[in-house]
C-alpha cells in the first residue's frame, strides 16, 4: 500500500467494534467487567492496557464471541456478537498451534475449516507465511520452532482468513525480549500494510505506546474504562526512532502515573 491510499482513510473513522454497557460476572461472583462502553475505530490499532487480572482478556474474548457477556452487547461491523464469526480472527497468548500439523497446515487451518480447496488455501497460506518472515519453514512442525517463530505462525493463521478485525491477546508475552522488539516493529509495518482493525491486549506500557494508535486504560477489577490515550508519535521509516521520541517517553510516563494509583490502592 502506498501513502495515497493511507491518506484516503477519513480523519474520523467509523467504529467497527462497538462495546455497549458490557458487564461480566463469572460464576462464583467474580466481577470482571463493570458496564464497559467502548468504540474501536476501523483501521486502527487499539490497545487494552491495565494491571494483571483487570479483565482485559475477558473483554477481548467477549468481543471474539468466546465467552458470553453477562450484560450489554457487542456489535462488530453493525452485527450483534453471539459467537465467533469470520470477520474476527484471534491471536493467542500461547500460540494455540496444532502440534501434529506443519506450519503450512496450521496457517491454512482457518480456510481448511471453511472448506476452501487445498491448493487454493495453501497458496494463500504460503503468501502470508512469507509476509511474517517464515519462508522456508512451511514443512516445519511447531515443536521445531522457537517461541517467536510459533507466534509468527499464529499471526499468519489469523491473517490468512482475511478477517476485518484481528484480536490479539498478549501475543508477545511468551516471547523473549529481543524477539519481542522485532515483533513490535513488524506489527507496525503490518498495521500500515494490512489496513485492518487491530485490538491488542498487553500489560506492557512501553509495548502499548509503541504499537498503538489508541490506548484504553482499564481500572482494576471490576474493570471500567479509566482513560483513553492517543499517543501522538510520528511513525517514520525508522522504527528505532520511536523509542527515542520525547512524545513516546512522555506518553509512557503519563500512563504509568495513571496506572500507579491502582497499584497503590491494591497494595
Amino acid at each position, binding site marked *: 500500500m502506498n501513502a495515497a491510499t493511507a491518506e484516503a482513510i477519513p480523519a474520523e473513522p467509523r467504529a467497527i467494534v462497538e462495546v455497549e454497557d458490557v458487564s461480566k460476572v463469572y460464576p462464583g461472583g467474580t466481577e470482571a467487567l463493570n458496564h464497559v462502553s467502548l468504540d474501536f475505530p476501523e483501521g486502527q490499532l487499539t490497545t487494552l492496557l491495565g494491571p494483571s487480572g483487570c479483565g482485559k482478556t475477558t473483554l477481548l*474474548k467477549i468481543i*471474539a*464471541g*468466546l465467552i458470553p457477556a453477562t450484560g450489554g452487547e457487542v456489535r462488530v461491523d453493525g452485527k450483534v456478537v453471539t*459467537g*465467533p*464469526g*469470520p470477520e*474476527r*480472527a*484471534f491471536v*493467542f*497468548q*500461547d*500460540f*494455540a*498451534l*496444532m*502440534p*501434529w500439523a506443519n506450519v503450512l497446515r496450521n496457517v491454512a*487451518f*482457518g480456510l*481448511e*475449516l*471453511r472448506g476452501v480447496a487445498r491448493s487454493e488455501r495453501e497458496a494463500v497460506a504460503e503468501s502470508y507465511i512469507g509476509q511474517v518472515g517464515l519462508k522456508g519453514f512451511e514443512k516445519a*512442525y*511447531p*515443536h521445531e520452532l522457537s517461541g517467536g517463530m510459533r507466534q509468527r505462525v499464529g499471526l499468519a*493463521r489469523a491473517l490468512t*482468513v482475511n478477517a476485518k478485525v484481528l484480536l490479539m491477546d498478549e501475543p508477545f508475552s511468551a516471547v523473549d525480549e529481543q524477539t519481542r522488539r522485532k515483533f513490535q516493529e513488524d506489527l507496525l509495518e503490518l498495521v500500515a500494510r494490512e489496513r485492518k482493525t487491530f485490538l491488542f491486549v498487553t500489560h506492557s506500557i512501553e509495548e502499548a505506546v509503541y504499537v498503538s494508535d489508541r490506548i484504553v486504560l482499564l481500572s482494576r477489577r471490576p474493570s471500567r474504562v479509566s482513560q483513553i490515550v492517543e499517543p501522538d508519535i510520528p511513525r517514520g521509516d525508522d522504527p528505532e526512532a520511536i523509542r527515542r521520541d520525547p512524545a513516546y517517553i512522555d506518553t509512557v510516563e503519563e500512563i504509568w502515573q495513571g496506572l500507579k494509583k491502582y497499584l497503590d490502592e491494591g497494595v
Partner: protein
Amino acid sequence: MVIGKIRVPLFCSLIIWAALWEVVGRSGASFIIPPLSAVFARIVEIVPTATFAEALWITGKAFLLGNAIAIAVGVPLGVIMGRSIIADRVFLPWVNLFLSAPLTALVPVIMVIFGLGETTIVMTVVLFAVWIIVLDARAGVRGISPSLVEMAQVFGANPWQAFGKIYIYAALPEILSGIRLGMIRAVKGVVIGQLLVSIIGFGRLFELYSSRFLMEHFWALLFVLFAFAFTLNEVLAWLERKVDYYAAARH
C-alpha cells in the same frame, strides 16, 4: 542394573529364572512344571499345526473384532464425556463401576444373552477392553489446552470438525495409551471368554491340554500368548511415544 562395577542387562535376570525353571523341571518335582527346554520344543512343534492355526484364526478374529468395537465405541464416548459435563455425569459412574468390577463374573451373563459362540467371545473382549479406552480418551480430551479449543471455535469449526481435526489428535497420546491398556485387558477377555465357553479357539486347546495333563503343551500355548501380549504392548507403547508431541501444547 549395575552389580559391582559391571553393567548387567535386564534380561540377564530372565536367564537366571529360566535356568532355575529348567533345573526344577528336570528334577521332576511336579508334573505341573516340565523343563523349560521341553516347553520351547513344544512351541516349535505345535505352532505350525493346523489345530493351532485354526485356534489362532478364531481367537485372533474375536480379539481384533472385539477391540475394533471397543475402540469405535470407547473413543467417541470418552471424547464426548470429556467435552460435555452432562454426558460425563450420566456415564462416568458406570464406566468407573465396570472398570473395577470383576468382569469374569459377567461372562456367563453374556453367554446367556449371546449363546455359546463367537459372538460371546467378541462381546467379552469388548467388555474387558472398552472401559479403560473410554476413561483414557476422556482424560486426554480434558487435558487439551483451552486455547486449542478456543482456536477451533474462533476459526469457525463445527462440532464435527472440532472432534475430527482437533480433539482426536490432541488427545491421541492418551487415546493410544487407553487402547494399549484395553488390548492387554482384551487378551484376558478373549482367553477367559474362550475358557468359560471352552469349545472354541485357544480356550478349547487350553481345556484339551489341561484335561489330559499335557503340561508342556499347556505352557507352550501360554508362552505364545505371553509373547503376543508383550509384543502388542511394546508396539503400541512405541506408537504412543511417537505421537507424544501431539500433546506438546499441554507441557
